[in-house]
């Protein structure tokens, strides 16, 4: 059962969110809602503590739920000392924050929104620290980015809040994406996403050649989240969030996520030189930058925010060191910082709430008016300053001990203690400034002294508890064993080995103590000379900010997006050009065709070049070029047909009669369909479009694009033909087996209807679907355009004058031709089907030949007349019977020959008297099926594309009026 306990805190917070949402319409005041909702994080705190107490010594509790098993993804949770430390801080301080937020918003009944966001954020944060694998961690990580966005932008009418929220989302979200990429590397190297696997493959990860890559990516994620220099710029601006949110985000949660990640992964990817140096350099820099910037502030919240930045730098630098003492310092610092910083933030909010300002230039002398707050802030500030007997002193002592640890590299021997002392002095000065500026002395602004009084107990209790804890842990004469054990467990999880933790304040006179004294003295000096130092700092580095860089990046991205959008201008030809040029670019970049391939093979071998070949080449080239330059569409279409015939001749010369035959008939049929379709586009429209055809600039550009594409295509063909393997395994197999296995002399025919029968079956289905697709498209288009009402159709039917495709009367001689051709085409088609197995031609040819005969009727008699005269021509029946027949034939093969579409000779089986050279085989039946389907589909196409449109109807009406006049 302890496993399930891990999910429980998350579930409790989830329920809390729903309760908060449900309260949205209750009209409750914020303080009342806060009073109720605080029990959810409190319960989560209790359950986490209980679950952790159940965990066996030194072992982690895990919970796993399959999520996407095929990808090896699980939703898993993990609770060890480190997660427990963070989880308890989150829920513990979370409880106080909810209480505090309720009091902060007071009577505001719309604050349910804020409380919901806070709980949402808390859930995300808790999930992050409880996550048991990298993917779950990443999900919650992003959830914290988004929910903190909501919190920071809570006062969304305020532009500063929106900007600050965007900035934090942009920086932390971007870091999160880098981190995900790093996680993917780690997962693929260690072979799993869960922490157990990752910890077990620590050496593998550290020795991987990709270590610098995923290290950098993960570090980017952690540093952006934990506001390390130079990504620290989002944190002060996030101060535009309401104070309860700032207190929560910046004391115990959001900014600690990066620290948690680094500490969590330290056993797996830490303890390398790169790790040490990167973390140390960035940590120390951040520490100094934060301390320095914080000292410049007058507003309480940014002051605290920068001291947080400084503290985060310390934590990062500590994780970088691979010493026991560093991890002891880490856990103590995390706890100490969370306690005093949350107390200070919440107190700053109370000061703001009661006096109406947070600016120390307007505060001062509040000692007597707000004695309780004075006490709370003083305790917390002393802890922050690192003065005895507070918990913060202990944190600083261990920190200094770790900075002077002999195992550190010699170069940092002096640097680490020095910077730590310097930053400590600045932080001390900040803390003193805070207390002095708000409470001591006289009001800074004599004319407008601040007014305020201590709030109700529930309000000051929230900062009071952590402040008192800071004091208690420091002064308690007996070491609290459970706390020591707890911190030791957390440090052990991060360090990877046992860490001894003690909470004794007095450890004798030693180096850390001396350094501590120096820091305190220095801090006092800074405080004393603060006016001078501040002016000096302002002058020295007036514009020490990275916001310019951030703003530049953002506006750069904006304009990039704008450019990308401009590419999508809704002009199809432009898209085509982009696609074609991209194709050309891809081929040129990645094909890696060696140039020698061309130089070696580029000789005009005239082998195989005869008169006919030359003729067909000239035909292809001339006709396709002619189709480009000819202005009239009809003539261009005919030129296209000629070019297709040239291709057919080329194919026939190879020699391959079957393909050439199909190419010929299909080419003719395509040309006819195209000619018929010319009239679906009104001539006026086409002429208009054609007039635009010859703008010189566009032409040059298109010729360039087309020429480039043609060159690349020719190069591909040339390479393919020169490098193709010259021995085929498949071809000899077909050549040897076509006669014995299928009884076919025509190997190509055998492949089409026997060897690859299933393929062919699917292909005729595709063809039929194309026909049905045309029917559907035109049907819906006509219905939308409101054409072809039924009444009109009957009227047209009554007209018996045969009219050709363009609505013009055709001559009787042509009628006779049509009458003769169709039966001939049918006969030819049947012959193809019967003898296609031994001769050129097959079902496809047969179908297209028959369709050609029918097409002729459409041209000569027009749509209506053809429909009337050929009632047997039911395209749907033809397609259906063709497809059914092909299926039955395949099943027949399965029944009689033991394999789907296996060869069966039904003629021989039933002893039918058949003419010589013709066998009633399954191949023949399949050919018939193909022919039926192709005929049906081609008819369907002709039917739909050759149907009379507006222009034709006009012609009809014109003709009718002429008749009437006569």
């Amino acid at each position, binding site marked *: 059962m302890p496993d399930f306990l891990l999910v429980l805190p998350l579930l409790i917070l989830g329920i809390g969110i729903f309760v908060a949402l449900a309260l949205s319409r209750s009209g409750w005041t914020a303080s009342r809602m806060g009073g109720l909702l605080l029990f959810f994080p409190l319960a989560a705190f209790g359950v986490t503590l209980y679950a952790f107490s159940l965990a066996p010594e030194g072992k982690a509790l895990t919970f796993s739920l399959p999520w996407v098993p095929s990808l090896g993804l699980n939703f898993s949770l993990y609770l060890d000392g480190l997660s427990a430390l963070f989880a308890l801080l989150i829920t513990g301080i979370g409880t106080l924050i909810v209480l505090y937020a309720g009091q902060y918003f007071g009577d505001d009944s719309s604050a349910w929104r804020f409380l919901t966001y806070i709980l949402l954020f808390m859930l995300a944060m808790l999930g992050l620290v409880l996550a048991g694998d990298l993917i779950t961690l990443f999900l919650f990580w992003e959830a914290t980015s988004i929910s903190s966005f909501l919190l920071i932008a809570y006062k969304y009418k305020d532009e500063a809040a929106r900007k600050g929220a965007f900035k934090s989302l942009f920086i932390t979200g971007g870091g999160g994406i880098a981190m995900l990429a790093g996680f993917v590397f780690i997962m693929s190297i260690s072979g799993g996403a869960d922490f157990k696997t990752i910890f077990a493959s620590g050496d593998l990860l550290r020795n991987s050649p990709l270590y610098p890559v995923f290290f950098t990516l993960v570090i980017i994620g952690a540093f952006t989240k934990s506001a390390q220099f130079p990504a620290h710029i989002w944190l002060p601006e996030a101060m535009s969030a309401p104070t309860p949110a700032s207190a929560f985000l910046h004391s115990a949660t959001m900014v600690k996520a990066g620290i948690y990640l680094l500490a969590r992964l330290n056993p797996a990817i830490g303890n390398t030189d790169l790790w040490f140096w990167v973390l140390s350099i960035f940590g120390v820099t951040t520490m100094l930058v934060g301390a320095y910037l914080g000292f410049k502030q007058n507003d309480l919240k940014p002051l605290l925010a920068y001291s947080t930045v400084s503290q985060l730098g310390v934590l990062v630098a500590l994780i970088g060191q691979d010493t026991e003492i560093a991890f002891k310092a880490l856990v103590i610092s995390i706890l100490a910082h969370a306690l005093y910083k949350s107390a200070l933030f919440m107190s700053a909010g109370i000061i703001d709430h009661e006096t109406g300002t947070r600016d120390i230039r307007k505060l001062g002398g509040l000692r007597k008016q707000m004695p309780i707050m004075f006490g709370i802030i003083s305790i917390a500030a002393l802890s922050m300053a690192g003065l005895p007997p507070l918990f913060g002193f202990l944190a600083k002592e261990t920190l200094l001990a770790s900075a002077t640890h002999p195992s550190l590299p010699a170069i940092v021997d002096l640097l680490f203690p020095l910077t730590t002392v310097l930053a400590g002095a600045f932080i001390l000065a900040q803390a003193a400034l805070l207390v002095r500026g708000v409470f001591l002395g006289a009001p800074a602004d004599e004319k407008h002294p601040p007014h305020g009084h201590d709030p109700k107990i529930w309000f000051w209790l929230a900062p009071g508890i952590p402040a008192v804890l800071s004091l208690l842990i420091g002064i308690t004469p007996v070491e609290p064993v459970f706390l020591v054990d707890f911190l030791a467990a957390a440090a052990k999880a991060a360090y990877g080995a046992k860490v001894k933790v003690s909470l004794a304040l007095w450890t004798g006179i030693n180096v850390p103590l001396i350094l501590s004294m120096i820091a305190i003295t220095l801090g006092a000096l800074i405080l004393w000379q603060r006016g001078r130092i501040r002016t000096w700092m302002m002058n020295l580095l007036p514009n020490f900010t990275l916001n310019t860089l951030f703003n530049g990046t953002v506006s750069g991205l904006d304009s990039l997006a704008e450019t990308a959008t401009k590419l999508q201008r*809704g002009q199809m030809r432009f898209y085509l050009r982009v696609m074609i040029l991209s194709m050309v670019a891809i081929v040129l970049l990645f094909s890696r065709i060696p140039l020698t391939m061309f130089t070696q093979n580029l000789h*005009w071998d005239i082998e195989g070049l005869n008169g006919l*070949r030359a003729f067909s080449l000239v035909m292809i*080239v001339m006709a*396709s070029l002619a189709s480009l330059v000819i202005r009239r*569409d009809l003539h261009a279409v005919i030129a*296209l047909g000629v*070019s*297709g015939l040239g291709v057919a001749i*080329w*194919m026939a010369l190879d*020699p*391959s009669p079957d*393909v050439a035959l*199909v190419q010929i008939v*299909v080419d003719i049929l*395509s040309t006819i369909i*195209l000619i018929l*379709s010319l009239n*679906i*586009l*009104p001539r006026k*429209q*086409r002429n*208009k*479009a054609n007039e*635009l055809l010859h703008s010189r600039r566009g032409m040059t550009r*298109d010729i360039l694009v087309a020429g480039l*594409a*043609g*060159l690349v*295509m020719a*190069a*591909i*063909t040339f390479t393919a*033909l*020169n490098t193709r*393997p010259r*021995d085929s395994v498949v*071809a000899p197999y077909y050549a040897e087996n076509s006669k014995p296995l299928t009884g076919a*002399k025509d*190997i190509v025919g055998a*492949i*089409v209807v026997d060897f690859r029968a299933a*393929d062919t079956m699917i292909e005729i289905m595709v*063809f039929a679907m*194309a*026909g049905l*697709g*045309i029917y559907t*498209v*035109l049907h819906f*288009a006509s219905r*939308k355009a409101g*054409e072809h009402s039924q009444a009109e159709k009957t009227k047209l039917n009554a007209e018996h004058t045969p009219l050709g495709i363009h609505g013009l009367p055709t001559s009787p001689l042509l009628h006779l031709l049509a009458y003769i051709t169709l039966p001939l085409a049918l006969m030819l088609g049947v012959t193809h089907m019967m003898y296609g197995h031994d001769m*050129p031609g*097959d079902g496809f040819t047969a179908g297209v030949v028959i369709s050609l005969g029918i097409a002729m009727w459409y041209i000569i008699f027009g749509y209506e007349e053809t429909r009337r005269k050929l009632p047997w021509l039911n395209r749907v029946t033809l397609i259906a019977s063709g497809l059914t027949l092909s299926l039955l034939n395949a099943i027949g093969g399965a029944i009689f020959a033991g394999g789907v579409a296996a060869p069966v000779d039904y003629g021989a089986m039933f002893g039918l008297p058949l003419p010589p050279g013709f066998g009633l085989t399954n191949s023949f039946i399949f050919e018939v099926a193909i022919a039926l389907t*192709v005929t049906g589909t081609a008819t369907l*196409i002709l039917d*739909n594309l050759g149907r009379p449109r507006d222009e034709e109807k006009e012609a009809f009406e014109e003709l009718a009026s002429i008749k009437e006049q006569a």
Partner: protein
Amino acid sequence: MNILTSLAVGILFAAGIYQILRRNVIRAAIGLVLISNAVNLFLFSTGAYNGQAAAYSTATAQISDPLPQALVLTAIVISMGGFAFVLSLLYVISTRYKTSDSDEVKGLKN
């Protein structure tokens, strides 16, 4: 031979690309046929050997590779089906946008 085939394929392809870049949509349809001819010719030429005789089991000379032929045979018919479908789309363009000029088809945006 290879150079001639490459030439034929390249020119057919270039002509097809040029046509589909025209504003008149019927020209684009013509371009499509040219391109499919180019591709079919290309596939057709990739047989393992250039034969002396047609691919019949009775042939005495070296036969041409039957496999690409069989593939191209069906491909030719299918490309006709696809091409006819494109023509029906042209009709939709013409009725819905009252134009044959692809630049005036503005429905692609928004």
